Each structure stands twice: as C-alpha cells, then as structure tokens.
C-alpha cells in the first residue's frame, strides 16, 4: 500500500537526513558484530534431524537392507532403484541399489519407511564432488555418521 508521508520542514533540506543516514551506517560499521560466519573454518551447527547424504547402514560388515522395496515405493521422487537377489548368507539382498541423486528431494521418507534401519540420511551437506558419482551400492555402503 502506498503510504504518503508528510515531508517535514527540516527534511526538505535533506542535509540533516543525510547526517542521520551517515550516523546509522557508521554505527553499523564501527560497533555492530558481523552476522556472517567464515564457512570452511567455522561451520553452522545443524539439527541432528538434518537430512543430508544417504548411506546404507551395515551390521558386522553386512548391509541391513533386505531389498524389501518399501523405500522405492514410498519415494515421491521415484529415485531409488533396487534389484533384489539371493546370497548364501542372506535370503534376499540388493544386488543393485542406486539412488538418482539429482532427483532426490531429501524428504527422508525412505529412512522412515525402512523396517531394517538400513537406508539413512546423514548430516553431510557438502555433496559437491570432483567426479561424476553414481550413488551405487558400493558408494552408499560407506558409513557416514552415527545416526
């Protein structure tokens, strides 16, 4: 909404107002604390509920995942691709487990849906990389964080 303010007599001269403005900026310059942080050295503390880079939790070196297909079912972005298979020590396990990370929206539904506490979203938010990562099983099995 347009609010018309009356210009006072002193404000018409503009100089006093300029002085006030200069006073405010100088006050900020000399006396106020920076609100920014120096990122790579200082880091902001995120909530433990933060949903970052994915990983698949292992127990004694064996992945928790049983390829139950609950996470690709619940995934709203449809970005989890699992191929199930059989193994001597495990009745059902994911032969392939890939996440299309470009489509992932980090909603965390997969983590909630997982009955085996296998797929997890860690607190890592620096996901830029020097190579073109495929979020395949080998990569996801790297344990990230204690969640």
């Amino acid at each position, binding site marked *: 909404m347009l609010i018309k303010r009356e210009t006072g007599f002193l404000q018409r001269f503009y*100089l006093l107002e*300029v002085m006030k*403005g*200069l006073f*405010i*900026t*100088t006050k*900020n*310059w000399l006396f*106020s*604390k*920076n*609100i*920014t942080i*120096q990122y790579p050295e200082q880091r902001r503390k995120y909530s433990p509920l933060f949903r970052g880079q994915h990983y698949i939790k292992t127990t004694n070196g064996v992945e928790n995942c049983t390829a139950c297909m609950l996470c690709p079912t619940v995934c709203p972005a449809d970005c989890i691709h699992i191929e199930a298979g059989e193994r001597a020590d495990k009745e059902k396990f994911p032969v392939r487990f890939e996440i299309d990370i470009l489509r992932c929206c980090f909603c965390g539904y997969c983590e909630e849906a997982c009955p085996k506490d296998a797929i997890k979203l860690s607190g890592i938010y620096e996901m830029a990389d020097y190579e073109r990562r495929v979020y395949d099983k080998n990569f996801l099995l790297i344990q990230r964080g204690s969640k």
Partner: protein
Amino acid sequence: MAGGVDVTTFELTAMAIKLGIVLLILLHVAPIMVWAERRICSWMQNRTGPNRVGPFGLLQPLADAAKFIFKEEYVPAHVRKGFYELAPAVSIIPAFLTFAVIPFGPSIDIGGNLVHLQLADLNVGFVYILAISSLSVYGTIMASWASNSKYAMFGGLRATAQMISYELALGLSLVSMIMVYGSVSLQEITQAQGEVFAFFPSLPKWGVFLQPVAFLIFFISIFAETNRLPFDLPEGEAEIIGFHVEYGGMKWSSFFLAEYLHMTTAAGFLTAMFLGGWQMFPGMYTAIVALGLEGDALYWTMVGLRVLSFAIKVMVILVFFIVVRFTLPRFRYDQLMHLGWKVLVPIALVNIVVTAYMISFGWL
C-alpha cells in the same frame, strides 16, 4: 619560456623523485580504495568482506587485476573500433594529470635548495585542475559513442549532462574562495590557511570555517564530478545503463582506475582548498613543542607531520566517499538536474555576492 629556464641537476632530480613518488602513490590508491570500499561496505552491512587473499584480504585487488588482465579482450562486433580502443586511455590520462598542482607538503629546504612538495606550481593554480578535469568527460563521451549501443549512449548522455552541470556549481563555489584568498595558487591558499581566527585562536582559518557554504557546494559537486554514489548515474550499476556497458576486462577496469584517481585528486583539492592542506591539525604544534625538539629535528618533524596531516585529511575524505556511497540512495535524473541548476548554482551565486559584501566591509 623563449630563452629557456636554468634547470639545475638538483631540481631535475628532485622533480623526478617527486614525480615517481606521486605516481607510485596514485597508482596504489585505486587498488587500496577498491579493497577499502569492499571491506567498509561489508562491515556496514554486518559482513566480513574479502579476507582470503593475503593479510586481511589486502591482496584481493591484485587478484582482481590479474583476473582482468587474463580475461579475453572481447570487442563486440558492432563497436567503432578505433574510438572504442581509445576511450579508456582518454578517460585515464586527465585523471593522472590533475594531481600535479596539488601541494602535499610545504616547501622544504635541502642544503640551501628549496623544494616545493608539489609537482608544478603553475601560475594558473587550480584553474588547471578545472581545465584538465573538464577534459575527462571526453573519455565518457567517446566510450558511449564508440560502443554504438543504446544503453551506452543513454548512459553517456546522462553522464555528460551531469558532469557539465556540476562543473558550473563547482566553479562558482571556487570563485568565492578566490575572492577570500586573493589567489589561485593552491600553495598560497594553503599557506593562508595556516593563520588563526583573532577571536578564537585555537581555530585555524581553514576554508571550511571561512566559507562553509562554498565548502558544502564544492563537496556535493565533487561527488557528482567523480560519479560517486548519490550521483552515480553515469555508471548506473542498478539498471546497467552506463557508458561502459560494452567494455570488459582491463579496459573496463581502467575506467574505474580513472574514477578512483579522480576521487583522490578531488579529495586532495578539497583538502588544499578547504581543510588547510598540509597545515597541521590544531594541537600538533603544541605537542611537538612540548616534546622539546629543536633546530633540524624540529624542522623535519614539522615537515613530516605536515605531509602526514595532508595524507590523513585526504584519507578521511576518501573514506567519507565510501561511507556516503553505502548510505545514500541514488538521485533520479530530474532530481539531479534540479539540485544542480536550481539549488546549488543559485546558492553559489548568492554566496559570491555575500562574500563580496563581507570583503568590502572588511569582515573577511
């Protein structure tokens, strides 16, 4: 100079040394000002600013310059080639020339030879500054015309109109100063500012106290002349209608080098004219007398302190330029013209008449 003047080797050496020092300082002002501008701006906005390259980010301008130098020298196909290449040089040369007449210290005595701490004590004095800086508008015109683009043209037209309008107010504010000091030589004006008021001896007779109105007009006008922020229509950061929209790399940054040089010269001019030039701050003299220095030591301390005073005053003005830039919003074009022609020029004219009356009554 028909017969030629006798120039001794000493004078030539002194001249060369002075020239070298002044050029060195002028060339370093721009990078340091860029750094200061970015740091002070960020401090005002509660940020930190560039602090990665070198201590406190002081080498940031060097990194920027390296980037500019190694950028591709892109010349758009539609420009008028020769003038396009020429314009940055045309804008930068007057910027370097103008500092010559600004005295940055008193005349010093080295083994019986007098050395003026000023590059050239021309008998036209500061009229030289006005003349040469009026040429700097050609860099702008040439750049805007050679770019052969609408936005550059509009920027150039606005810049030209602005610079010409405010030159008038600037010149008129200086007329009253000429009347007060009866001289156009900045060295003489500075010397005259060393006196003190009779009724209040601790207040020096600086121009700002003798002619506060002229000071204000001059101060506002140099903001417009150097294209600094309340009047930065020529650059037009916000809507990118500036005279240098078609420029890039080192050519573009040489326009900015010229802007910072103009700022330095303007600050030096203002200092010499209104802030007592190299005259020491009140209280400095009492301080060195209290220290008990005598003879040569006293002399050289005073010379040093005077040059230091000049430098401090110029730096304060330059920092003020920056503070103003990040405080005030920009004037609209019609407001700019209104302020220049309908406010500053009439006030300057009235000021001249009032000053003339005061001089004829013997009050000044």
